[in-house]
C-alpha cells in the first residue's frame, strides 16, 4: 500500500472514532434537544467532509484543497463537544464551534487550487480566524452564557462557561455583538471576492467550479443573514429557519465537490465522441481549432505545430512562437502521433501541442483524450504550418541577404577608396615629382621612383586581397581542396585540412563551403586563442557537411556579430543550415550542412 493511501486510511479511521465519540456525547447529553436528528446528521456531515477530503487529497496530493476539507470534518466533530455534559468539554466545544465555518469559508475561497488567491481573499480569511478565536475570547472570559451562542442544534440549559475569570455578562454581550458585526463584514467581503473571481474566470474554470461556487455562495450568504438576524433580535423561529438552510448548504458542500468531478468526467465522454465525429467530417481548416476549443470549452485555445528540423514551435501561419511560461495561466499539452515510430520511450512522434487554460489540467484525462483524437488532423495541418514557416524563413533570409549585399558593396567601395585608390593617387603625385626632378636632381628622382614602385606593389597586394574576398581564383581554377589548403596556410594558427572530397562540387556549394571555412578560420585567428584547428568536408546523405573545429576558448554565438549570421543566411538561401557548438572553455565546432545531390 502506498504511504499516502495508508496515511489517509488512518485519518479516515480516526474520523470514524471521532464520529462515534460525537454520537455518544449527543445520546448522553442532558441539554441536546434533537438527539435523533443530531446523532444521525452529525456523523454523516463530518465523515462526508473527511471522506471527500481524503479522496481529493489522494487525487491531487500537492493540492491543499483535500487537507482543508479533512480539516473541516474534524473541526465539525470538535464543535460537537458542545453536546457534552461535562462543562469544560462543552465550553471548549462552544469556543471552537465556529472554527469549522471559518475553515469551510477558506475551502470555498481556495477552490480549486487549495490556496486563497489575491490579497483580499487572504486578508479576509486571516481576519475570520482572528474574529472566531480572538475577538470572541473575551465573551468566554467574562462569563458569557453558552446557551446564547451554541450553534449546534442545542437548546437551553447548557453547562456553565468554564473559561470565565469574571462574571460580567453585560460586557460579554458587547464582545458577542462585535464578533457578529465583524463576521457579517467578513462574509460580505468573501461573497464579493467570490463574485469577482467568477467574473474573471475563463469558461473552463467556471464549468469546473460552478457546483462548489454556488453551494458556497448560498452557505456564506445565509450565514451572513443568520448573523444579522441575531444582531437585529429577530424572532427565534426565523433564525432557526435560516440556520437550517445554512446547515443544508454546509452539508451539501462535499457532494457539490463530487458532482463537479462527475460532471466533467461524464461530459468528457460526450465531448470526445462529438469531436471525433466533427474531425471525421470534411470541414474547413479553421474548424480544427474551433472543434478542439468546443471540445475543451476553451474559446481562447491555440494550436502550435512542431518543426523538428529547427526544433521550434510555430502557429498555423508559420510564425515562430515560444511555448507558454509557467504561471502565465496557460498550459501546453503535447499531441503525438498515435503508435508512430517509438523513440525508445514508447511515445509517438511529436506533432504539435494544444495551448489551453491551465484550469483544464484539473481534468488531464479530457485534454489527453482530445489531444489523442486530434493527432491525425493536426499532422495534416503541421505540414501546412511547416511550409508556411519555411516560406517566412526564406523571406526573412532573403531580406537579410539583400541587406548584407548592400553592406558588402559599401564595404567594397570603402576598401577600394581607402586602399588601392589612395596608393594610386600617391603614386601619380610621386611620378609627377620624379618627372620634374629627372633633369635637375637625378638622385632624388631615383629615390622617388623607388618609393613609387613600393606604393605600386602595396596597391597590387591590396587589390589581390580584395579580389580574393570577392571570389578566390584558386577556388574556381583548382577546386575546394586547393583553396582550403591555401586558406589554411594563410591562417596564423596551424590548421590541418583533414578531409576534402576529391571530385569537384557544384560551384555554389564550393563557394558556400569555402566562405564558411574562411569566416571560421578568421574567427579562430581573431578570437579563439586556439593552438590548432582542423577542417573536414565530407559528403553525407545528400548534403556536404563542412566542419571547422578549434581548441580555443569557445563562447562563439551565431547571434552576435554579422560574420556568422551572414553565413547562416547564405546557407539558408541554399536550403542548408549552420550550427555552432561552442561551450566556454571547450573550443568551437562550426558545422554547415549544404544540400548537394550525389552525382
Amino acid at each position: 500500500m502506498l504511504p499516502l493511501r495508508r496515511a489517509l486510511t488512518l485519518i479516515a479511521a480516526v474520523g470514524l472514532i471521532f464520529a462515534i465519540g460525537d454520537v455518544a456525547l449527543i445520546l448522553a447529553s442532558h441539554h441536546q434537544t434533537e438527539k435523533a436528528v443530531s446523532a444521525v446528521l452529525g456523523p454523516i456531515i463530518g465523515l462526508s467532509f473527511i471522506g471527500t477530503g481524503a479522496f481529493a487529497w489522494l487525487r491531487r496530493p500537492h493540492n491543499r484543497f483535500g487537507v482543508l476539507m479533512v480539516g473541516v470534518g474534524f473541526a465539525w466533530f470538535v464543535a460537537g463537544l458542545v453536546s457534552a455534559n461535562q462543562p469544560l468539554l462543552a465550553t471548549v466545544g462552544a469556543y471552537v464551534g465556529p472554527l469549522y465555518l471559518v475553515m469551510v469559508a477558506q475551502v470555498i475561497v481556495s477552490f480549486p487550487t487549495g490556496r486563497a488567491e489575491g490579497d483580499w481573499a487572504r486578508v479576509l480569511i486571516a481576519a475570520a480566524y482572528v474574529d472566531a478565536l480572538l475577538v470572541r475570547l473575551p465573551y468566554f472570559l467574562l462569563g458569557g452564557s453558552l446557551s446564547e451562542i451554541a450553534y449546534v442544534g442545542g437548546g437551553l440549559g447548557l453547562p456553565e462557561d468554564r473559561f470565565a475569570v469574571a462574571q460580567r455578562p453585560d460586557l460579554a454581550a458587547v464582545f458577542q455583538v462585535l464578533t457578529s458585526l465583524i463576521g457579517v463584514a467578513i462574509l460580505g467581503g468573501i461573497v464579493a471576492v467570490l463574485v469577482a473571481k467568477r467574473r474573471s474566470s475563463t469558461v473552463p474554470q467556471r464549468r469546473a467550479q460552478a457546483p462548489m461556487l454556488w453551494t458556497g455562495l448560498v452557505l456564506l450568504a445565509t450565514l451572513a443573514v443568520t448573523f444579522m438576524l441575531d444582531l437585529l433580535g429577530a424572532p427565534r423561529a426565523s433564525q432557526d429557519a435560516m440556520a437550517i438552510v445554512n446547515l443544508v448548504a454546509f452539508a451539501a458542500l462535499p457532494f457539490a465537490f463530487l458532482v463537479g468531478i462527475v460532471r466533467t468526467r461524464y461530459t468528457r465522454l460526450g465531448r470526445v465522441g462529438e469531436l471525433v465525429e466533427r474531425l471525421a467530417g470534411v470541414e474547413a481548416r479553421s474548424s480544427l481549432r474551433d472543434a478542439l476549443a468546443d471540445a475543451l470549452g476553451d474559446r481562447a485555445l491555440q494550436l502550435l505545430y512542431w518543426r523538428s528540423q529547427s526544433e521550434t514551435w510555430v502557429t498555423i501561419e508559420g510564425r515562430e512562437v515560444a511555448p507558454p511560461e509557467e504561471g502565465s495561466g496557460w498550459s501546453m499539452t503535447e499531441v503525438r502521433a498515435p503508435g508512430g515510430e517509438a523513440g525508445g520511450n514508447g511515445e509517438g512522434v511529436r506533432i504539435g501541442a494544444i495551448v489551453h487554460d491551465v484550469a483544464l489540467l484539473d481534468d488531464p484525462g479530457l485534454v489527453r483524450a482530445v489531444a489523442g483524437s486530434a493527432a491525425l488532423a493536426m499532422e495534416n495541418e503541421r505540414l501546412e504550418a511547416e511550409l508556411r514557416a519555411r516560406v517566412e524563413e526564406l523571406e526573412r533570409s532573403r531580406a537579410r541577404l539583400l541587406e548584407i549585399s548592400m553592406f558588402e558593396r559599401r564595404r567594397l567601395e570603402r576598401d577600394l577608396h581607402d586602399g588601392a585608390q589612395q596608393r594610386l593617387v600617391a603614386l601619380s603625385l610621386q611620378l609627377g615629382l620624379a618627372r620634374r626632378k629627372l633633369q635637375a636632381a637625378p638622385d632624388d628622382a631615383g629615390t622617388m621612383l623607388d618609393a613609387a614602385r613600393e606604393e605600386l606593389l602595396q596597391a597590387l597586394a591590396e587589390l589581390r586581397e580584395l579580389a580574393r574576398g570577392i571570389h578566390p581564383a584558386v577556388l574556381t581554377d583548382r577546386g575546394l581542396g586547393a583553396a582550403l589548403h591555401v586558406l589554411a596556410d594563410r591562417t596564423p594558427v596551424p590548421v590541418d585540412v583533414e578531409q576534402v572530397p576529391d571530385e569537384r562540387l557544384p560551384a555554389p556549394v564550393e563557394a558556400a563551403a569555402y566562405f564558411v571555412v574562411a569566416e571560421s578560420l578568421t574567427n579562430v585567428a581573431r578570437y579563439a586563442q586556439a593552438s590548432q584547428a582542423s577542417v573536414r568536408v565530407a559528403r553525407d546523405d545528400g548534403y556536404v557537411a563542412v566542419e571547422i573545429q578549434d581548441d580555443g576558448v569557445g563562447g562563439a554565438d551565431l547571434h552576435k556579430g554579422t560574420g556568422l549570421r551572414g553565413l547562416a543566411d547564405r546557407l539558408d538561401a541554399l536550403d542548408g543550415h549552420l550550427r555552432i557548438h561552442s561551450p566556454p572553455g571547450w573550443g568551437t565546432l562550426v558545422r554547415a550542412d549544404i544540400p548537394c545531390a550525389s552525382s
Partner: protein
Amino acid sequence: MTSVLIVDDHPSFRASARMLLEAEGYEVVGEAPDGAAALAAAGDLRPDLVLLDVNLPDLDGFAVAERLSAAPAPPAVVLVSSRSSEDFGSLVRASGARGFICKCDLSGAALSALL
C-alpha cells in the same frame, strides 16, 4: 609665398602633397586629419589656402568649406578627392570653395589656375 593647410585623413596623401607643393614654391604651414582639426588649424594658422579632402571621418569637406568661407577674411578653399568632379556636381560651388582638383591631377599649375 602662398601658405597652405593640407586637410586629409590619409597620411600618405598629406606627405606626397606636401612634397609636391613645396617643390612648386608653396609654404605648407600645417596638416589636419579631419574636419574639426581643420577648422581649429585654419583659425590658428590663418593660411592663404586650404587644400581640403572631400571624404573626412567626421564632417564632410563641403561642410568644412562652408564654415571656413563664412568666417571673416576667409582662406581660399580648394577641394580635392580621388573621385572625379563629376561625382559631386554643383556641391563644390555651393560650398563656397574656389574649385575642385582630382588628387591625381594636383600640381602648382592646377592650383594657381583656381586662385
